[in-house]
């Protein structure tokens, strides 16, 4: 009997916690081939792997819709919760209140977040829940076959039907006005920028919103759509090149280009380096961020990059006044008050 031919040795690249990238992948996607959401899933896998986050310490949260199905397609070693339409923020808030030690990675869509879930999004921002909130924004409802969503741009036309005439909601502008501590816009086709932003959001303590224009190849990728691949590619005003510099030796060297750049240090000591492309954008200035959004909007363009950042806001957990360890790690003997305490209460009532 001859020996089976040996497979040639394969080099597997490991991250700082010695995990291969496979530890961060998920099941096969059932979305339409070419969907922007799949590109974002790949970015999430790469960002989590490169950041060296233990996969089981991530909690994948989502609502309902095409985007909210994607947690099945990445981070197969993480627990997740595909909740109800638009209400992922509240479920995340409750989980976070009892276990602050997980990295909450929320994925939502424009149908989920800009309509039914807009109230919960707003209040999660208001509370500064410590989570990454990736909004996969394509301007249409995919699972129900292509109705406009509340982020569809005026004059934009999807594959079927008439152009949208209703004023869109810009969730980045909304978030900035609400004092959201990390607000970015990106494009599923700008893998490098998106990855840097996702990595930075994962290092941020507080609510990090990344609104990612993610074209719907089936219902909204025609030339008349302002959220098609072609349109976004040609009309993307990039504020800056963004590079994520981890708080340890990076796996690869970061190229420092000539010219101006600004480093923003994140809560875990890592840095997002924003290299100026045209005029310098100051991400700590909310008015500048809103101006950039309005200027782009006036020309029917999409501005991408880290729009706004505030590293000084306390996150929800600091407001709750809780014990140091996560509540789920508090032993039962400390959760239930003692018999003596009840005796004292009874006695006080009787006195």
């Amino acid at each position, binding site marked *: 009997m001859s020996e089976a031919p040996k497979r040639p040795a394969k080099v597997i690249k490991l991250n700082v916690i010695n995990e291969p990238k496979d530890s961060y992948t998920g099941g096969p996607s059932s979305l339409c081939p070419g969907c922007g959401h799949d590109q974002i899933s790949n970015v999430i896998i790469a960002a989590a792997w490169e950041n060296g986050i233990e*996969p*089981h310490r991530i909690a994948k949260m989502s609502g309902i819709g095409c985007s909210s199905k994607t947690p099945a397609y990445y981070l197969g070693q993480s627990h*997740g*919760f595909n909740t109800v339409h638009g209400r992922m923020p509240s*479920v995340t808030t*409750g989980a976070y209140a009892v276990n602050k030690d997980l990295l909450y990675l929320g994925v939502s869509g424009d149908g989920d977040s800009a309509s039914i879930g807009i109230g919960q999004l707003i209040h999660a921002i208001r509370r500064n829940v410590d989570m990454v909130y990736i909004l996969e924004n394509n301007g249409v409802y995919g699972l129900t076959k292509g109705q406009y969503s509340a982020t569809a741009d005026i004059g934009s036309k999807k594959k079927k039907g008439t152009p949208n005439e209703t004023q869109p909601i810009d969730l980045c502008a909304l978030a900035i006005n609400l004092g959201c501590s990390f607000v970015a816009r990106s494009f599923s086709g700008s893998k490098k920028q998106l990855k840097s932003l996702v990595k930075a959001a994962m290092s941020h303590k507080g609510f990090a919103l990344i609104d990612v224009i993610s074209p719907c190849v089936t219902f909204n990728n025609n030339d008349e759509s302002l959220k098609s691949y072609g349109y976004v590619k040609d009309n993307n005003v990039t504020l800056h090149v963004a590079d994520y510099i981890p708080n340890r030796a990076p796996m690869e060297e970061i190229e420092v280009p000539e010219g101006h750049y600004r480093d923003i240090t994140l809560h875990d000591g890592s840095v997002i380096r924003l290299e100026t492309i045209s005029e310098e954008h100051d991400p700590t200035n909310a008015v500048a961020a809103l101006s950039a959004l309005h200027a782009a909007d006036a020309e029917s363009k999409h501005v991408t990059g880290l729009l706004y950042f505030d590293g000084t806001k306390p996150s929800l957990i600091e407001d709750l006044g809780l014990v140091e360890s996560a509540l789920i790690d508090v032993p039962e003997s400390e*959760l239930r*008050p003692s018999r003596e305490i009840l005796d004292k209460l009874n006695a006080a009532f009787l006195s």
Partner: protein
Amino acid sequence: MATIANDFTINIATANGTGSQSANLILLQSLFEMGIPVSGKNMFPSNISGLPTWYIVRLSDLGYQAPGDRTHIQVLVNPATWDEDLESLETGSVVIWNSDAKKEMNREDIISYPVPMSSLARKINPKIAKLVTNIVYVGILAEMLGIDQAALESALSKQFKGKEKAIGLNITALGLGRDYFKDNLSKEDPYVVEGRELDTAKFFIDGNEATALGCHFGGVQMLAWYPITPSSGIAEAIIEYIPQIRTNDEGEATCAVIQAEDELAAAGMVIGAGWAGGRGMTATSGPGISLMQEFIGLAYFAEVPSVFWDVNRVGPSTGLPTRTQQSDITMLYEGSHGDTQHIVLIPGTVEECFEFGWRAMDYSERFQTPVFGLSDLDLGMNRWACEGFTYPEQDMDRGKVVRDRDVFEAFEDFGRYLDVDGDGIPYRTLPGSGMDPVLYRGTGHNTKGVYSEKPQDYVALMSRLKNKINGARELLPAPLLREEIECEVGVIYIGSMENTIQEIDDILEATGLKVSQCRVRALPFSNQVAEFIRRHETTIVLEINRDGQLWGILRKELPNDLVTKVHSVAYSDGQPPRARIYSDLIMAKLEEVEQ
């Protein structure tokens, strides 16, 4: 004249927001401290200031706690309801009325005690005359009925907890009332109070506070709530007790509190906490539960522990927000779309509010499902006598959670929704544990938690869920039976009807009809309920609503031969149950059945 001691009802008509509630509670507490069995019902409007409020104090040596059939002593302060209140009185009733109110006293057939309450109050302090007016009528009642001054002063100091100035002012006002009665009026009525020696010491507490304490002794880790009458008292009491019983020496708490943006978010937070392995809860009322329905279905289907307290008020819609009812039974038991079935715990006393407070958490984690506590406005917001709370006799039941990798590895096959033990309850691992990572979902799933639309997966899942909840029947608080062998008629009832049932029973017995009683304390029904029905010729299901919701659920679940034996007596007018109305309805129903 023969006196009537400890067997009458006082009705005090004031306006909301005038401070009458404090005065009324002092009156109630002072009677309670004299050892007199007494109950108080606050009939308040959905309003902050100005609308009519009635406070009903029932004294009964027999221990009756319902408001009674009639008013014996009417205190008239509020001109707005004056005529109506006066007109409704029976001949011979006593009226203590504010002669400064510029209203007529046009009844000749009553015992009239005019008191210039406003002028007396102004004597003490014109700026707060309105507030003081209330304590003046307490002084009048004290003198007229013979309430102990010591009991009054003790009640005052409890009400104003160390606020010496307020206590002093109120003692003066009480004295003015007493003196006015002594100097200007002569007692013409038969009503007196007599102190009683109690066998056991008791205190007054409302159901909401008792529930809140119970939740703390259940180790609640997260409260998410949205304010709504009549449930806010649960959340507020939970918050109030945290510094005292749920913080460490550094003042750090082991219970998070989040005031949500609405009831939907509150439900979401509770489910998030349960999913993460914590004990989350919310407190709301019917309108809130309506809003939470979608999430309730998710928690049932994805099997997430979560506790919801519903303090029932009058529906449908906004209904009568400050009135009591038992009308959320069906909505809780079969909450959310699709086939569902939920565990509902129904306390009938403040002691049970406490007990079911901690038990709800245990049941929810044991059965990995939403658990409801069903209280109501009457039980939740009124004060009831309590002998004290009993410490949980068992450790917290955290259910089937695999926390240890060795235990996890020992499973031959692990699936989040795999029924290993045959009781329908699967094992779960927690986020962050790294064991059996699973994407929880509200969509159809197989035993591994993976999306599935296969008919066999769906049927298996739905049958297992049914079995799981069925398995709770005999583990939940059992029905309380009061039965005598010769009784042909049984009465099944729930919740705060407990406080009226004895009086109903006595009225029925006076007509020669002896009935057995079965107080259901949880859904799904224990099999003992069917057995109770089997032992009786006829069973009445008595409830405070229009449609006989409990009866409907019972009929659906009873074996065919018993269905015809149960009959519904359901009535609700927003008022706390009055015994006479229900006893009359029971007798009418029995007559109808016999024909």
